[in-house]
């Protein structure tokens, strides 16, 4: 999926977006903890492109997605849609705006109401917005377009396979002809063979309907297949962002480097370099008490004591709009774990 044309107009802009959840801690709920689910995320999604968001489980991908389509209220920060600040829109205006942005969910089972027929599910957007007179034929068109039998209009979700259910979800998201579709791990729950079919469907719909996608996944190879640009998230922050190919060719952030080193890829071996897997120490820290300064420093092979745990790294720019939040970005790629470590000081002792 390539961005249409060279003129890039932003469709969505997130500015210093932050979302905290307060959670009760302990049996007697005395202490109130704060989950830093999304912390100071700024990014731009350009019209017609696919922005991939990748990161481990719990890094805040879904929260970012829900903030973007206003299913959640941000704690702070702003969201712009086509230049308009939609952070605190009135209910009425927001209702209109909902036609422009849709979301496809990860779980093809819980995302469809088991008590409604496919016709009712896909027809719901028309009923809510009263935009269509002949709902049935519109729904059947949509079903046909996403590769389902239009005659299955009166069936219930449980009569369909996971892949078919995801198609129903796509038809529903497509109904109001939105500009933006946020796909929150749309293929994670599916078999690999079915994944490819759904990805192809999304691709062909994108060019046909001029869609802009935000595509969320924890699977780096899926993200690479679909994305024009990629944002890598860690503990609620975007740690690296840039054009897909550039980022895969030369990751700058040690976290991205570690993620990429874990993906089996032919290209790396073709370079004559031995692909080594960079194993990160420890577990992802709790988002309730994220580490100081660079949140990656307790696990980072390059971390410099006295710098990384004290000073929060700003974004360093590289080729194009490639940026990474790191004091000591990766100089070249591929790089072995030892070489990566050589750039650091205190992580050596842990191995």
């Amino acid at each position, binding site marked *: 999926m390539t961005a249409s044309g060279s003129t890039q107009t932003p469709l969505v802009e997130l500015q210093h977006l932050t979302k905290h959840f307060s959670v009760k801690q302990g049996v007697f709920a005395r202490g109130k903890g704060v989950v830093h689910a999304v912390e100071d995320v700024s990014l731009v999604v350009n019209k017609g492109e696919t922005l991939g968001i990748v990161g481990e489980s719990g890094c805040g991908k879904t929260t970012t997605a*829900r903030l973007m*389509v*206003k*299913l959640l209220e941000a704690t702070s920060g702003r969201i712009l849609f086509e230049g308009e600040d939609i952070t605190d829109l009135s209910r009425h205006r*927001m*209702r*209109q705006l*909902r*036609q422009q*942005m*849709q*979301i496809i*969910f*990860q*779980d093809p089972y*819980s*995302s*469809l*109401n*088991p*008590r*409604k027929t496919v016709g009712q599910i896909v027809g*719901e*957007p028309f009923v*809510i*917005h009263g935009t269509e007179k002949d709902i049935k*034929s519109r729904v*059947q*068109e949509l079903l*046909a377009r996403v*590769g*389902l*039998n*239009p*005659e*299955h209009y*009166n*069936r*219930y979700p*449980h*009569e*369909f*396979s996971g*892949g*078919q259910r995801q*198609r129903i*979800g796509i038809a*529903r998201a497509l109904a*109001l002809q939105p500009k933006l579709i946020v796909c929150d791990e749309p293929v994670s729950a599916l078999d690999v063979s*079915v994944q490819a*079919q*759904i990805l192809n*469907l999304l691709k062909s719909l994108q060019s046909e309907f001029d869609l802009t996608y935000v595509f969320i996944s924890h699977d780096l190879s899926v993200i690479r297949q679909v994305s024009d640009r990629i944002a890598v998230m860690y503990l609620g922050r975007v740690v690296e962002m840039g054009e897909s190919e550039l980022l895969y060719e030369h990751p700058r952030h040690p976290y991205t480097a570690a993620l990429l080193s874990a993906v089996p890829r032919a290209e790396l071996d073709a370079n004559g370099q031995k692909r080594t897997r960079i194993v990160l120490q420890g577990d992802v820290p709790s988002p309730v008490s994220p580490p100081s300064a660079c949140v990656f420093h307790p696990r980072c092979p390059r971390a410099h004591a006295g710098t990384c745990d004290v000073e929060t790294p700003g974004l360093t720019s590289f080729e194009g709009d490639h940026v990474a939040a790191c004091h000591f970005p990766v100089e070249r790629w591929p790089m072995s774990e030892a070489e990566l470590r050589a750039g650091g000081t205190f992580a050596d002792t842990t191995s």
Partner: protein
Amino acid sequence: MTAAPTTVGGVAPQTVTRSGFELFWLRFKEDRAALLGAGTIGVLIVIAIFGGPIASAVTGHPNTEQYQQIMQDSFGLPKGPTSAFWFGSDGEARDLFVRTMYGARTSLIVGVVASGIAVLIGLVVGMIAGFYRGIVDTILSRTGDVMLAMPQLLISIGIVAACSSNKNGCVIAGPIAIQPGLALVIAVIVIFSWPYIARLVRGFTLSIREKEFVEASRSLGASDTRIIFREILPNLSGPIIVYTTLLIPQSILFEAALSYLGLGVPPDTASWGGLLNDAQRYYDTAWWLMFFPGLFLVITTLAFNLLGDGLRDALDVRAER
């Protein structure tokens, strides 16, 4: 549209092509116990509607007619079943068969109406509490808890006694008065039944509201009302149907308990509970007074329980694939 099937995503499922209802029916009709329950309830409903008048016509004994000459012995005690009085006579020398048939109407009305109202209130309160959570939930749930914490029978006795002491009932405010009779009994039952339903519905609502299809609906711009009635309510139908069928016999028994204490429907109106109440005066001499109304009460309770269990199994969403 006559478009040819364009199923791309693999083969269309051949094995599962049934609607939710067909699936439910397939499973339900295999459940003998539930069918027996449903059949029995059908018969009971027919009895409730036509049983009383038919019994009167067949026996020639009106509901409240007293037959002291033939159906009371020299001590004024009721006589047992004969060929003309199939169930014997009650304490006032009335035909117990006719009274039992008429009693079906009262008991079923109390059971169905009280349960229906309780379920309706419980549904609304439970859905609002579960959907909006927070302070609304706290207020509604605590109110329900308070109702459940009260000694039901004691309060019922209090209310009914207070309101039955004179013909005008107890005046709440100006024209609003609670008068003794069927409506009062139903009201008392409802007061103590809705919190159970509300608690149940609240629990289901809390979990359903987190489902992604609710998010999907919201992201399409659906209003809260639409989400509550179109997304959440249909998913409550299973548990609600089941609990209603279980609540009905409970309500009938509640009415019986009130009647047993002499607080039920007015004495002339036959109800199974009322008949049982009369029976205690003659428990050592007239077994039929206890036996026949009791038998109907037990059968009814059993039938609704069987139906409820069957519905619960057949409506189980988790087994739907």
